[in-house]
């Protein structure tokens, strides 16, 4: 056998080299990659899945506990004697009703059967008779024989019969019962009437049981608030088989488009992680917190319900979503950072907690006061009060100056047109006279006539513009004082010191700190000094009594706006200046004039002649030098003058003696060692010229009235949409890199990391605008940033302003989302601008829950509370708006006796005269009406007049011991009124609304807690109110409502009647002294 060994082939590289290992690696890699991609797709990029499963688990545990508790509560309630008693009486009532009910049901059933049984016959009869009637009616009356025939057929028809199988109850049927047509009709009517009566009877029979059922339901809902254990269990089950998915809200999907994306173009998926905000899973009654879920300390538990459920109620999630208010990228769900929009290139990062309320501003930019947004409100108040508005225009903020410029331009334009027309008229008339024919002449003449009429129309327009100007001039206020008065008001040497040391002199000043060199300071001081008016000179005043002045200062309410005292001993409001060192800087004679009437000017300013007028201008026209709101036209050109100082400070209508006392007290407010270096340079005219340029450069006229700079506009950038400015347009100057790295200009590191965003920019700018100049080269020193450092106190102020600015964006939501209410809420919106402008809330509580400054002053603690100005939370329902209009125009309610309060003459605090424009008064009146849900226009309700016997009874009641009304209320009797603590009833008719008055006398504490007026004067007897105390015999049989009787009497009270009453009451006949009069009652 030949040994044939197989041929050994050269090694086959393909067959023999194993690729197993690389293939293994490869496939492993592939598997890994696929696994990784699946992981990333379904887990890594879907962090919300983790959140949802965590939420479902924790929430269902929480619900489990809650269900147990609720079940226990339910057992407790169901086993409570009250519940059992109600349930038992319900059962017995139902039992009682059941017998009758069943009987009625049976009767109804029989009637229904009968109706059904006769239905066919009835229909047939109706058809047949209807047909015969028709046949009769269509025969003309003239055809007597045919008519008679038809009538006969009709009568035959009516007497024909129908057979019905008639049920008679208990399943019995009377076969083939015979009915004529009339019988069928009558039977049908009778069945329907019987049925209706039975149904009504059943209602009566069931009523007791139904009432008890209602009581029972109420008892249960009162004692078991929140969701029932069954509903809670439903929620828990929904958590157990929770379907993990993206939860998405399309904001306004069908509404108007704002960016051609359809609707708002906003998609919110925030709830995919913030599951607890979804009312579907967490109803409002549950209001979940982190602590409920046992995650109180966790930083990664985005499961709470929205903390402000009112906000959610007003802004339903399905309509608003989350990101329109909070910012952030609502679409992104692949990471927390992306969802919150805190990465480069996303324009609307989510607001940080301190700026949450920025989110309100986009839609609520028209509000001065937005409910539930105190931080934003504070920002707006600061924007106005600290004078931001002096340089930076902001849409919606006080822009009367712009309106004024507009009105004046129109007036000038009209005047120009008018003078042109006046030239045209004689030309046309001349042409008419020379016309070749009458037709042409007529045409030209009528053209001339039309022009004269046009001119008179222009005059009317011009006059209304002058009126508008008058109003606007009354409304324009400046943040700082009128510096035309500086020379008469201020101590000369103090001015340069002040310009350089504002916050050192007065730490709480509104004046921001400018970065001025000493030369600049001196130049500005020289300008202020030399441009100040010097004549006519101030009236010289005798000194007053400082101690009495101090008392008046505290009593009259100055501290509602002003503060007194330095450092921790400061008392009073922050609306106006701190007066602790006012004596160091002011001139006594000026302070007297100012306190007496802060609006008084040394000279009126004529905006057309562009100068301050003096007595000489008036003398030229033989006019006395009198200029005020009633004498506000220029003697030279007839246009409206500036006759008041642009200050919000009102007049307190003080006597000159009281004024001097207060001024003397104020002048004593100074540091004993106060001294200021003399400043002769202030008289250098060249320096003043330089100062004027500087004042223009720095925009001083934004806040101050300054001679020669009356027409200066705002020098800063408009901030209406500042929050939308692209980051590239915010000049971080040399800090861009540091901002991106998270290092502050002071070298400290930013707690939130990089601050290269709008928030970071605003914060630094507000803290110290100079940082954006640091290290920069300025060829001309004037190129440096002009913005002064605003005088803000702490982070609170900065963040309030930052919130306002961040929220001031171009709208990302469609117009219908903007809060521009058309109903009475508009009046509230408009009113707040006036209320905050004049600081009404310094003295008055206006909104429920709000506190006035005075309510917080130590002076008014305890017993002195009774001396607080009235609470106005229900003012719109309390007073007649027409009366309120008059009162606001003149709170003394008198043209001669003005040194008093019109209503509460016993109050030491004085309601001042604000010299509001008509427009402002209108806004305030409507505001109060709207705040109390009163209709507009107001139609005074009729008060039923009293008949003689009612009047006699009311009179007896009014003077009975049960109604001690006249003990506290003013009567016009001087001796009595000294101790009075409530208004005169004579005011009631014009001032009050009867419905409010009745609510008030029945329980005043419900309207104004803490009022001196006691509750419990009346008690309910049957369905009407009677006095709690012993009433006179004549009234005991009165069947009517005694509160109503009293109100009607009050509204019909005349001075004579009151005088007679006062004569009768023990109030003034007592004490042995005869009253100096009922006669005084008339005033």
């Amino acid at each position, binding site marked *: 056998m030949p040994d044939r060994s197989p041929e050994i082939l050269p090694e086959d590289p393909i067959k023999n080299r194993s690729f197993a290992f690389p293939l293994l690696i490869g496939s492993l890699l592939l598997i890994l990659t696929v696994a990784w991609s699946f992981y990333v797709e379904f887990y890594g990029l879907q962090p919300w899945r983790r959140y949802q499963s965590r939420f479902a688990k924790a929430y269902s545990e929480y619900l489990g*506990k809650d269900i147990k*508790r609720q079940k*226990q509560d339910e057992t407790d309630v169901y086993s409570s004697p009250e519940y059992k008693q109600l349930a038992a009486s319900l059962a017995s009532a139902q039992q009682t009703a059941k017998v009758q009910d069943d009987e009625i049901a049976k009767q109804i059933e029989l009637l229904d059967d009968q109706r059904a049984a006769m239905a066919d016959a009835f229909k047939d009869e109706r058809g047949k008779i209807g047909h015969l009637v028709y046949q009769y009616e269509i025969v003309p009356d003239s055809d007597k024989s045919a008519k008679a025939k038809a009538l006969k057929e009709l009568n035959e028809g009516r007497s024909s019969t129908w057979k019905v199988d008639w049920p008679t109850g208990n399943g019995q049927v009377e076969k083939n019962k015979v009915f004529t047509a009339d019988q069928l009709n009558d039977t049908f009517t009778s069945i329907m009437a019987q049925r209706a009566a039975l149904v009504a009877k059943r209602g009566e029979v069931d009523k007791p049981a139904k009432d008890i059922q209602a009581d029972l339901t109420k008892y249960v809902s009162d004692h078991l608030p929140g969701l029932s254990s069954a509903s809670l269990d439903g929620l828990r089950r929904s958590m157990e088989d929770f379907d993990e998915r993206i939860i998405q809200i399309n904001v306004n999907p069908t509404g108007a488009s704002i960016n051609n994306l359809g609707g708002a173009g906003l998609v919110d998926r925030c709830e995919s992680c913030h599951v607890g905000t979804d009312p579907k899973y967490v109803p409002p009654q549950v209001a979940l917190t982190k602590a409920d879920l046992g995650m109180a300390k966790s930083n990664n538990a985005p499961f709470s319900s929205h903390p402000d459920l009112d906000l959610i109620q007003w802004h339903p999630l399905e309509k608003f979503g989350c990101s329109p208010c909070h910012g952030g990228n609502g679409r992104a769900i692949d990471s927390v950072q992306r969802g919150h929009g805190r990465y480069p290139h996303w324009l609307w990062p989510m607001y940080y907690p301190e700026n949450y309320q920025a989110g309100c501003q986009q839609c609520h930019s028209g509000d001065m006061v937005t409910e539930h947004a105190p931080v934003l409100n504070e920002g707006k108040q600061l924007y106005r009060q600290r004078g931001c508005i002096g340089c930076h225009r902001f849409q919606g903020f006080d822009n009367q100056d712009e309106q004024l410029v507009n009105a004046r331009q129109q007036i000038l334009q009209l005047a120009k047109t008018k003078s042109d027309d006046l030239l045209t008229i004689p030309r046309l008339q001349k042409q008419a006279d020379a016309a070749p024919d009458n037709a042409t002449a007529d045409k030209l003449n009528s053209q001339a006539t039309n022009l004269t009429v046009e001119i008179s129309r222009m005059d009317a327009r011009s006059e209304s513009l002058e009126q508008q100007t008058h109003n606007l001039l009354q409304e324009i206020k400046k943040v700082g004082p009128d510096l035309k008065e500086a020379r008469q008001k201020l101590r000369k040497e103090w001015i340069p010191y002040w310009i350089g040391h504002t916050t050192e002199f007065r730490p709480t000043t509104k004046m921001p700190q400018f970065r001025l060199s000493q030369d600049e300071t001196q130049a500005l001081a020289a300008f202020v000094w030399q441009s100040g008016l010097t004549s006519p000179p101030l009236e010289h005043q005798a000194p007053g009594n400082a101690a009495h002045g101090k008392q008046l200062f505290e009593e009259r309410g100055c501290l509602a706006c002003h503060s007194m005292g330095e450092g921790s001993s400061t008392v009073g409001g922050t609306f106006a200046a701190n007066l602790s060192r006012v004596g160091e800087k002011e001139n006594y004679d000026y302070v007297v004039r100012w306190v007496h009437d802060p609006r008084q000017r040394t000279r009126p300013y004529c905006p057309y002649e562009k100068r301050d007028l003096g007595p000489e201008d008036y003398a030229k026209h033989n006019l006395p030098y009198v200029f005020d709101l009633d004498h506000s036209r220029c003697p030279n050109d007839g246009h409206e003058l500036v006759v008041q100082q642009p200050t919000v400070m009102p007049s307190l209508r003080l006597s000159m003696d009281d004024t001097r006392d207060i001024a003397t007290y104020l002048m004593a407010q100074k540091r004993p060692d106060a001294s200021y270096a003399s400043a002769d340079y202030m008289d250098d005219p060249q320096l003043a010229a330089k100062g004027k340029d500087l004042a223009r450069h720095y925009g001083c006229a934004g806040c101050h009235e300054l001679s020669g700079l009356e027409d200066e506009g705002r020098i800063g950038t408009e901030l209406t949409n500042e929050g939308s400015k692209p980051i590239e347009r915010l000049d971080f100057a040399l800090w861009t890199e540091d901002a991106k790295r998270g290092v502050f200009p002071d070298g400290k590191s930013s707690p939130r990391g990089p601050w290269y965003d709008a928030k970071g920019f605003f914060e630094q700018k507000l803290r110290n605008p100079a940082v954006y100049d640091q290290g920069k080269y300025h060829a001309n020193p004037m190129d440096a940033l002009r913005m002064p450092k605003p005088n803000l106190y702490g982070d609170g102020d900065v963040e309030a302003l930052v919130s306002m600015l961040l929220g001031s964006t171009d709208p990302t939501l469609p117009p219908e989302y903007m809060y521009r209410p058309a109903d009475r809420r508009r009046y509230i919106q408009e009113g707040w601008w006036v209320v905050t402008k004049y600081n009404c809330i310094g003295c008055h509580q206006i909104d429920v829950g709000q506190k006035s400054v005075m309510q917080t002053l130590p002076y008014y*603690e*305890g*017993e002195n*509370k*009774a001396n607080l100005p009235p609470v106005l939370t229900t003012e719109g329902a309390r007073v007649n708006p027409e009366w309120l209009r008059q009162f606001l125009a003149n709170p003394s309610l008198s043209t001669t006796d003005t040194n008093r309060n019109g209503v509460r003459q016993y109050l030491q605090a004085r309601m001042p005269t604000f010299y509001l424009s008509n427009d402002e008064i209108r806004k305030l009146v409507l505001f109060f009406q709207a705040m109390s849900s009163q209709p507009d226009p107001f139609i005074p309700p009729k008060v039923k007049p009293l008949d003689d016997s009612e009047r006699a009874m009311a009179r007896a009641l009014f003077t009975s*011991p*049960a*109604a*001690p009304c006249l*003990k*506290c209320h003013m009567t016009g009797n001087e001796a*009595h009124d000294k*101790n009075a*603590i409530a208004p005169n009833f004579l005011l009631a008719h014009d001032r009050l609304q009867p419905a409010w008055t009745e609510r008030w006398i029945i329980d*005043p*504490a419900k309207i104004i*807690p*803490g*009022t*001196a*007026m*006691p*509750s*419990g*004067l009346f008690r309910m007897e049957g369905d009407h109110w009677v*006095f*709690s*105390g*012993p009433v006179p015999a004549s009234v005991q049989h009165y069947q009517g409502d005694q509160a109503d009787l009293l109100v009607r009497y009050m509204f019909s009270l005349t001075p004579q009647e009151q005088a007679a009453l006062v004569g009768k009451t*023990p*109030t003034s*006949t*007592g*004490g*042995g*002294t005869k009253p100096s009069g009922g006669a005084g009652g008339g005033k």
Partner: protein
Amino acid sequence: MKTKLFNLALAAALAIAITGCGKKEDTNEQPVANSNAKKVIDTSTVGSVTGSVTLDGKPAPIKPINMSAEPYCLKAHPNPVIPPEVVVNDKGDLANVVVYVKDGLADYNFDTPKEPVVLNQQGCMYDPHIIALMAGQTFEVKNDDQTTHNIHPMPKDNREWNKSQPPGASPIDETFGRAELAIPVKCNVHPWMKSYIFVFKNPYYAVTSKDGKFTLKDLPPGTYTIEAWQEKYGVLDQTVTIGAKESKPLTFTFKTAAASGD
């Protein structure tokens, strides 16, 4: 004996702790503080502070009340009434001074007295002029006058109320929930009617009698700041340390403006 008492106290503390816990489970919303058992006073060791309050100097004369606005009241007083702001006898003993433990008392649990504290309105004056009671204790106001009064306490920390009380009306029952010193009370109809209410969380308070005497009974041993309040002259305080079963005397002397000026 001592151990027995100790055991008893322990048992009581435990019982309170247990009921506290039990309650917590019930409502699930009890504040945490309540679950901490409060201390119980060992009645075998308590002491007291007894003393008097005097006035150094002659008080400035006070103008009599003019009641002419209310003839009924005017008739009730044949002689002019002096406002009881400073009630002092010839020896200088000062009445109507409230003496109380201001500081130093541990967190004990006290029962609220069942009997009400009564304020009577008689001849358009409050009787007594100074009222001291415990939080939660019933404050009963009666009107013996033939005229309508209103009772208007103006507290800072309690709820304010203002009720009218015509002649012959049934008494008004109210309570004050929180401790507060010197709540002014007045009648808005008769402005001279003024009174002060003191509300305490503990029973260690007293109002001095006509002879200026007061006693704070059953004080557990410890060091206390005792304060005396007088309507016109303000407050004085002193520190005392009481040992077990010890009774310490204490005297307060207010000074009139004239006396302190000397």
